[in-house]
């Protein structure tokens, strides 16, 4: 394994164990950076060490000890110098899985702002650089750097613990972790319309985090649902747009290009996540995605099952967006009129997908004039350019002479 690959795969684990040993985010990060730089110089000269991870951990720890010693001597802090003896005592130089879990829970602490949680997780757990994260979120590098500095200062200043929460808190806190992972995934997924590759990388990072959660918390079911959901979406990612970057709807996508391995893994995970009690939000959404992904042709889609699953989801998450999706599924299962009636009950002012959904059901009914009016309504609200072009194409279709 070369150094670059080692950085990508082991950075988070190594950092996690260093933070536990040193008790300071910034110091651990700086020391690890120095250790990687030392490796860059020493390994080609002397040959790589037998256990590169252990080498990096002990080198970084020694660098951190040096720094603390300098600081303590300068400030004549006897107690810090005494504490160093403890830190320098040889301990096993292997990353401990529990440390990674501690790191994830600290980075995703609800006392930090969501965008700070995402940035910190990508920086520390995934080892992305500040520049990479800034590019992925389309924010200036100094803005993102500032966000990281503030978050780390709050962890230290307000003493956000470096711990896996107690059992009675675990469910709530795990929700917050999963929300961060899914936000990262959606950042990559939603913006991969013609945007640079880095944003697609976010999907891969989020899936990696999902795998890590399952490995670290094997008894929890909902992370399995979350990973399944991400895999099932990701399996279709490349067919969602055509060569020109135009939107291709699910029913028109080239199913032969879907990633079958990801679909199979996602479907297997959904089955596991559904077993043993009421499912959570991610699991139900994954189950819906699995029904879609497993239909060989669009016409084979089991809309009745999808509509039923949306009913379950609506009970867990009574949001108008879920109601909108449910209405479309009911239309496909039980007829357009029933779907239209459900759409009437949804209140989503200013949201273009509500008139767009109504337009689509009217179009399927052959009510071309009503459909055109609804498309115009949607066009007045849409902001994304790819979506605008899609709606304009549809409008042209329904207003074209027979």
């Amino acid at each position, binding site marked *: 394994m070369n150094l670059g690959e080692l950085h990508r795969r082991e950075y988070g684990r190594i950092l996690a164990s260093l933070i536990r040993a040193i008790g300071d985010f910034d110091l651990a990060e700086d020391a690890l950076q120095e250790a990687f730089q030392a490796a860059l110089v020493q390994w080609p000269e002397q040959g790589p060490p037998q256990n590169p991870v252990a080498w990096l951990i002990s080198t970084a720890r020694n660098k951190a000890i040096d720094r603390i010693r300098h600081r303590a001597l300068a400030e004549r802090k006897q107690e810090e110098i005494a504490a160093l003896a403890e830190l320098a005592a040889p301990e096993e130089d292997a990353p401990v899985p529990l440390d990674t879990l501690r790191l994830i829970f600290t980075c995703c*602490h609800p*006392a930090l702002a969501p965008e700070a949680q995402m940035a910190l997780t990508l920086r520390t757990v995934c080892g992305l650089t500040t520049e990479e994260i800034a590019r992925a979120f389309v924010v200036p590098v100094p803005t993102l750097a500032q966000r990281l500095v503030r978050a780390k200062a709050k962890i230290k*200043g*307000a*003493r*956000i*613990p470096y*711990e896996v*929460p107690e059992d009675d*808190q675990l469910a709530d806190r795990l929700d917050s972790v999963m929300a961060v992972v899914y936000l990262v995934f959606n950042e990559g997924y939603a913006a991969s319309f013609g945007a640079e590759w880095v944003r697609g990388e976010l999907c891969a990072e989020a899936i990696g985090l999902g795998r890590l959660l399952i490995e670290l918390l094997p008894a929890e079911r909902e992370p399995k649902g979350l990973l399944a959901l991400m895999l099932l979406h990701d399996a279709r990612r490349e067919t969602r747009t055509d060569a020109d970057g135009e939107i291709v709807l699910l029913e028109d996508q080239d199913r032969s290009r879907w990633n079958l391995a990801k679909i199979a893994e996602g479907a297997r995970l959904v089955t596991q996540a559904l077993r043993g009690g009421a499912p959570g939000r991610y699991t139900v959404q994954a189950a819906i995605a699995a029904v879609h992904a497993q239909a060989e042709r669009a016409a084979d889609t089991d809309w009745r099952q999808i509509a039923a699953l949306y009913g379950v989801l609506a009970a867990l998450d009574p949001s108008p967006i879920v109601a909108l999706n449910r209405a479309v599924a009911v239309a496909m299962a039980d007829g357009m009129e029933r779907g239209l009636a459900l759409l009437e009950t949804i209140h989503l002012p200013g949201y273009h997908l509500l008139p767009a959904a109504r337009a689509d059901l009217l179009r399927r009914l052959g009510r071309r004039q009503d459909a055109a009016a609804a498309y115009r309504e949607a066009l007045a609200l849409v902001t994304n350019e790819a979506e605008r072009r899609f709606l304009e194409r549809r409008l042209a279709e329904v207003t074209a002479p027979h």
Partner: protein
Amino acid sequence: MQYLLLCCSNEKSWADLPAPERDKVMAEYAEWTQAIVRSGHYRASGKLQPTSTATTVRETGGKRVATDGPFAETREQLGGYHLIECRDLDEAIAIAGRIPTLRHGGAVEVRPLEPTPHR
């Protein structure tokens, strides 16, 4: 580590609460305070009189000026504080989360104190 819990609530909706309901919340509040005294987290507490009794002092043009009212007009007003000693932020959040006025739309800001040097 010490944390200051700044308890904010809407004075008007608190005043509008029926008296028996208010008494009930205050009884729960006394229980909450006793619990943190027993557990050793308690350092200090205080309930403030309403913002109508507040005076704000500022310096303008080199002169000290005292004016009627709180330093900022907000939807929720600072009504009291608790100083607690906790292991970490999670413990402070857990203690703050049991404050009974939260049920009536109050909010509690949890602020860590700067550590005192050479303690």
